[in-house]
C-alpha cells in the first residue's frame, strides 16, 4: 500500500496545527444571533481566542469570560458563572442564548455547570428576568480532550440538542456547514438558491464579512436564529458537509427526530460539489438546474487551462481541519497533483474508519503519508529530511515552514490572518474549486518568478 495513516512518533507538540476545544465552541457560538457565550475558565481562554478569530475575520464580536481567579480554582467557581450570566443579561438586553463553555480548569475542578444552569433557571431567570427569553446551554469542552475541531462538533450538537423541537414538518433542509468562512456560506447558499432549496444554515456567518457604514451602525454577528435551531427537527433532511464538524449534530437529529442525514462529502472540488448537489437533489427531489451546469462548466473551463499544464505532478503537503484537508487532497488528485503529506492535528478515532481515507489508501499510486496527532514540526522535519514539495496548503500558523524553506504556500483553512481577505473567498462549490485552482497556480507562478525557475514559460499562455 502506498498510502499510510499513522500518528506522529513524538509525544509532545511543536508548533500545533490546532488549538483546543473551547475555541471550536466559541467559533460555533458566534454564528448564532443574540448569542454571547460565557467561557468558564481563565480569561486567556477567551481573550486569545477572540483575538485569533478576530485576526482571521478582521472583525470583532462578543464572547464573555467567567474570569476564574485563584480562589475559584481552589474553592470552585460556579459563583463566577452565576455572576457572569447576570452581568451579561443586565448589560446586553438583546442576548437570548448563552452557551456556558467549559475549559480544562473548570472541568478539572469539577464545577457542576449543568447544575448551576438549573439553579440559575429556577432562581435568577425566573425571579429577575421572568419575561425574558434566555437559554443557558452548558457545553463541555475540556481542553485536554479532542481539539478545536471536536469542540466545534460538540457545540453544534449541543445547540441542536437544546433547541430542536418537533412541530410541523417543513420542506427545509438543514445544512450544517462545518468550520467554514463567510465566503463559503455565501457560496453554499447560492448553490441551494439555484436549486430552489430552502435551507436552515448552521451557522449563518456570512454577515461576518460586514460593512463599515456611514451611520456607524454595522456590527458583526451571526444570523442563525433560535427559530432556525428549533426548526431543525422538522426539516426534511440534514446534510452535514463535514464529518468531523457537525456530523454529530446530524446523527443526533436522525436518531432523535428521524431527520434523515447525509454526512459529507465536503464539497471541495468539482467532484465533491457534484456529489453534494446530487445529495441535495436526492433529499429534496429538486433537479439540478441548467444554471449550475453552466457554472460548473465555467469552473471546469478555468481549471482546464491550469491542470495538466501547470498543476500536474506538483507535490503538495496539506494540513489543517480533517474534512478540509481530505477535501483538498481529493481535489488535488483530480487536478493531477500529488498530495504527498496530509497532516491532521488531532487523533480522532474516526479517522481509521473514514471511507475517504480508506479510498486514498487503496488507490493512491505513489507514496503518501497521512499523519494524525500531527504538528507543524512534522512538516518541517520531513522537508529537512528530503521531502520535496512544490506547494503547501494550510493556515497561517505554518507560515514560517513555507517562508524558511522557500516553498510556495496557499493560505487556506483557519486561521488565515497573514493574507488579505481569505475569509471572503469560498473553497467549497464550483466557485471554490475555481478559486483554489487559480490561487494555487498563482502562488506557484509568483514563486517561479522569485526563484527565476522557468519564469519565462508564462510569456506565452
Amino acid at each position, binding site marked *: 500500500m502506498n498510502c499510510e495513516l499513522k500518528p506522529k512518533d513524538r509525544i509532545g507538540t511543536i508548533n500545533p496545527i490546532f488549538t483546543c476545544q473551547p475555541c471550536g465552541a466559541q467559533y460555533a457560538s458566534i454564528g448564532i444571533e443574540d448569542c454571547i457565550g460565557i467561557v468558564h475558565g481563565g480569561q486567556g481562554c477567551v481573550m486569545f481566542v477572540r483575538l485569533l478569530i478576530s485576526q482571521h475575520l478582521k472583525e470583532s464580536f462578543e464572547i464573555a469570560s467567567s474570569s476564574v481567579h485563584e480562589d475559584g480554582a481552589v474553592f470552585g467557581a460556579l459563583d463566577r458563572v*452565576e*455572576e457572569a450570566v*447576570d452581568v451579561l443579561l443586565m448589560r446586553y438586553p438583546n442576548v437570548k442564548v448563552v452557551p456556558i463553555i467549559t475549559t480544562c480548569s473548570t472541568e478539572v475542578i469539577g464545577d457542576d455547570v449543568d447544575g448551576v444552569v438549573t*439553579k*440559575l433557571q429556577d*432562581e*435568577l431567570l425566573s*425571579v*429577575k428576568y421572568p419575561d425574558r427569553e434566555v437559554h443557558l446551554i452548558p457545553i463541555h469542552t475540556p481542553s485536554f480532550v479532542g481539539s478545536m475541531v471536536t469542540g466545534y462538533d460538540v457545540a453544534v450538537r449541543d445547540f441542536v440538542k437544546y433547541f430542536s423541537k418537533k412541530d410541523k414538518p417543513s420542506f427545509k433542509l438543514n445544512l450544517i456547514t462545518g468550520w467554514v468562512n463567510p465566503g463559503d456560506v455565501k457560496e453554499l447558499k447560492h448553490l441551494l438558491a439555484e436549486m430552489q432549496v430552502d435551507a436552515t444554515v448552521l451557522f449563518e456567518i456570512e454577515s461576518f464579512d460586514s460593512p463599515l457604514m456611514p451611520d456607524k451602525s454595522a456590527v458583526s454577528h451571526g444570523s442563525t436564529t433560535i427559530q432556525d435551531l428549533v426548526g431543525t427537527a422538522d426539516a426534511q433532511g440534514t446534510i452535514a458537509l463535514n464529518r468531523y464538524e457537525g456530523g454529530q449534530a446530524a446523527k443526533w437529529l436522525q436518531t432523535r427526530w428521524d431527520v434523515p442525514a447525509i454526512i459529507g462529502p465536503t464539497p471541495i472540488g468539482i467532484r465533491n460539489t457534484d456529489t453534494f448537489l446530487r445529495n441535495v437533489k436526492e433529499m429534496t427531489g429538486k433537479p439540478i438546474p441548467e444554471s449550475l451546469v453552466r457554472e460548473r462548466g465555467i469552473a471546469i473551463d478555468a481549471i482546464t487551462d491550469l491542470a495538466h499544464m501547470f498543476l500536474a505532478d506538483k507535490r503538495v503537503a496539506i494540513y489543517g481541519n480533517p474534512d478540509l484537508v481530505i477535501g483538498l487532497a481529493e481535489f488535488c488528485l483530480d487536478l493531477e497533483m500529488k498530495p504527498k503529506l496530509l497532516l491532521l492535528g488531532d487523533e480522532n478515532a474516526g479517522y481509521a474508519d473514514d471511507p475517504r481515507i480508506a479510498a486514498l489508501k487503496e488507490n493512491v499510486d505513489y507514496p503518501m503519508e497521512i499523519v494524525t496527532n500531527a504538528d507543524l514540526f512534522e512538516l518541517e522535519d520531513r522537508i529537512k529530511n528530503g521531502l520535496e514539495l512544490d506547494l503547501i496548503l494550510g493556515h497561517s500558523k505554518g507560515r514560517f515552514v513555507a517562508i524558511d524553506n522557500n516553498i510556495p504556500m496557499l493560505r487556506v483553512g483557519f486561521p488565515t490572518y497573514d493574507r488579505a481577505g481569505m475569509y471572503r473567498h469560498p473553497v467549497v462549490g464550483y466557485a471554490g474549486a475555481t478559486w483554489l485552482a487559480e490561487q494555487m497556480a498563482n502562488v506557484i507562478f509568483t514563486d517561479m518568478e522569485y526563484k527565476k525557475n522557468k519564469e519565462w514559460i508564462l510569456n506565452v499562455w
Partner: protein
Amino acid sequence: MTKITHSVVSDHPFPNDAAAADAALAAWEALDDVTRDRVDVMVDWIMKYCLWQFHSRAWDRTRQNAGILSITATLLCDEPYTPQTPDEKVYWVDAVTLARNYRKICPWLADMSKDEIKSLVTALHARIEYLTVTGSLNEELTDQHY
C-alpha cells in the same frame, strides 16, 4: 434566589496614613499663595517628566522622595555634592536632572537665597510625599511585598 455578590474589593487600607495626610494638607493650605504656586510648578514638572516618585510601595516612595529631593536642594543651593554609593549616584542623577530643569522653568529661583530655596524644596518634598504617599489613593502602597 441566588444572591449575587460582586466581590470586588481590596484588602489594603488607604489612604495609607490618614493622620499624616490630614497634617500634610493642613500644612499645604497654611503656605502662602506664592509658595504654593511655585511648588505647583515644580510638582508639575516632576509629574510630567519623572518616574522615580512612583515606585510601588509606600516605604520605597518615601525613600526615593527623600533621597532625590534632598540632593536637589543641595544642588539648587550650589553646594557641593559627591555621590558615594550606587544608590546615591542614581539619586544624584535624577536630582541633577531636576535641578537643571528647575533652573530653566523657575526663573525666580535665581533671586532666592539658599535658605529660601531649602525651605521651598522642603515644601515641595512635603507636597510630593503627600501626593504620592500619605494622601495617595493607591491601595497597593502598603502591600508588604513587591
